[in-house]
């Protein structure tokens, strides 16, 4: 089975729900008492799309201003970015534009960009219009999503889109930071824990199984 390993970074202002989103997707739960992320948290998950398995290394970064200068460490060599804002706080949408500029300046390889307007459960307090966000997403070559981590709406699509985007990237020979290999084994859980043999010389990331790891199987895409 063809396996792709890619890095996805979650960026956005403090309190927009980055961790809630990731925890909702990977841990399948929501907590009202999520404490602020310190530095960045690391999760892994797998998505099976047709005959391809996509392993995602998710870097959920802290939104606090003091960690801003650390961001390059987390987005370096990323293949996809989730740019999360809160639809009820316009300034969190504005902040995304700075993130995009920074990524464009510092990340050389093509990236899958997903712009995510979170907290649709508070739609009556909406400050960012869907149309405006959509237009902006198109202008940066990304896709716009609206989600509610609280009500578990739209989150699967965000990660699925990123995974599909990575498969497309992997077909592009210019992309060297994605790790692509064939594994004969399909779904045996013991095989998952074995570190796969590196095939490309550009590989830098060495991956071990981690706490948040979970297998996701999708019927189709």
């Amino acid at each position: 089975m063809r396996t792709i390993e890619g890095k996805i970074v979650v960026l956005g202002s403090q309190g927009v729900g980055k961790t809630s989103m990731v925890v909702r997707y990977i841990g399948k739960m929501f907590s009202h008492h999520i404490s602020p992320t310190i530095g960045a948290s690391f999760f892994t998950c797998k998505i099976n799309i047709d005959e391809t398995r996509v392993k995602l290394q998710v870097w959920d970064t802290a939104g606090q201003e003091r960690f801003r200068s650390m961001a390059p460490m987390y987005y370096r060599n990323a293949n996809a970015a989730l740019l999360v804002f809160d639809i009820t706080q316009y300034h969190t949408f504005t902040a995304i534009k700075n993130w995009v500029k920074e990524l464009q300046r510092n990340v050389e390889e093509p990236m899958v960009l997903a712009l995510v307007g979170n907290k649709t459960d508070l739609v009556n307090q909406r400050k960012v219009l869907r149309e405006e966000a959509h237009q902006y997403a198109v202008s940066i070559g990304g896709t716009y999503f609206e989600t509610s981590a609280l009500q578990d709406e739209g989150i699967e699509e965000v990660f699925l889109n990123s995974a599909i985007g990575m498969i497309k990237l992997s077909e592009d020979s210019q992309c060297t930071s994605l790790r692509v290999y064939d594994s004969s084994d399909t779904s045996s859980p013991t095989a998952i824990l074995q570190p796969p043999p590196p095939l490309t010389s550009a590989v830098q990331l060495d991956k071990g199984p981690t706490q948040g790891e979970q297998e996701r199987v999708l019927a189709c895409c």
Partner: protein
Amino acid sequence: MATTKTDEDVDFKGENDEGKHPEGNLLNFEPEVPVESMLVPTDNFDSFEQEAPPDPSNLKVDSNLAECQNNDNNTVDDDKLDPDTSGASRSISELSLASEESTDHHGEEEVTNNEEWRSQEKHVFILSSAGKPIYSRHGSEDKLVTLFGVMQALVSFIGDDGDVIRSIHTQGTLFVFLIKGPIMLACVCKTRESVAQITVQLNYVYSQIVSVLTLQQLTRIYEQRRNYDLRRLLAGAERLIDHMLIALETQPALLLGAVQCLPLVPTTRDAITNIIVSSCNKIKNLVFAILVGGNQLVTLIRMKKFFLHPADLHLILNLVNSSESFKAAESWTPICLPKFDPKGFLHAHVSYLAEDCEACLLLLTVDADLFFPLSEAKQKIVEKLRRASLLQSINSALAHPGTPVSQLGVPEARHFLYKCKATAQFWGPVPAPPYQTAEGAKRLLDQYRILHHRLHAPMQPLKLLYLQDHAETMLGWVTTGFELYVAFEPLVTKTNAINAVNKILRWIKKDENGLFITNAPTF
């Protein structure tokens, strides 16, 4: 071999104050002094006194961070930091700027007239040398702009003559100031703490700020913009300061400048340590591996040549205790340890051992690219610990309610704290009546503070102090190897007190290897 002690061993002069120091007779009770300690053995006060005057030359010492880095591509800039003269050169008239910015005077009166706010025992304020509010322990700092203006005025008025304001004493209230380069800290308290003790506390708070920003960043910000609103950068770190202040009010560890170890059978602790060492020793640039649980140290392994200062370890414990988010996933976070190197960040791989083990492992490195090797090493550590049933050992030690003083067979003693000076570690029994309530625990800690202050008074330090009052009798004793603070029932006789002290020391000596980490493992 411990000899039997009689009354003559400790001969009190009959005064409540000072006694003859019987050190010669008590060498048997001195703790086993390790050749090297993993923690820097230091007296809290000394170490902080040294840095009381903001001396920019301190910053030019060789960087520890750079030293433990094999390749110096990433070393922090060695920018020269200008001595901060801004605070001193400002006159009061300039100040009006700061107070004019206040738009909410009405709100301010609301806060400062508020009975609850006024009745707080201890206030801590942080402001920039330009008078900008940074932090207030109680009440929103936004609503206290005038008050911050007054504090800034006091500091700069005294500073005009080249002096430094340290404290103001009024009946029942003490004002303590600490000026640290571009920021000032002030404490207003109605507690019975001394200026030296409050200064140490303010130093801890300052260290907490440096720990999240680095001194480099803090200094540079104010060089570029004297009027900078630091709250932008500290957003989210207020909880760390709050938590630190609560710890300062409630935990003896910070008063003693020592840490408490999780009691473990020595062979168990060694086995844990060996597993961590064997899983990490191939990783270059790993400076410290620290395992903590329940606010106690399980083990600490360090790179040769480098030591951890207890104050830095307290910052680490504070970070772990106030960050629930570490429980959810592996984290990779920058942390500056001011005593280790105030100029730059270390990178910390932080994770709890397992869902069924609430001990937190921190792997600190100077190499920002080490996350994955460290993540793998952590995985190995957990597997090996689990295979050797050591996770269970840690769990049962964490679940142990602690030893009550009654198990020691010294009925006269209600509570005590024993600090091993050479290892900067301490131990005390779980509080029993009358100290098991929050109120009782607070009174006990207040009593320890008084003892501690008198014993370490800069002008006239004491070796032995015996204080009797209506609620309890307190005894404090400082030798070259240990410090002992004991609370007795109020009517204890001196003879019984001394016998009890000897029993306590004998008990500690017997269990020394389980209560304290006496070796200093390295990678």
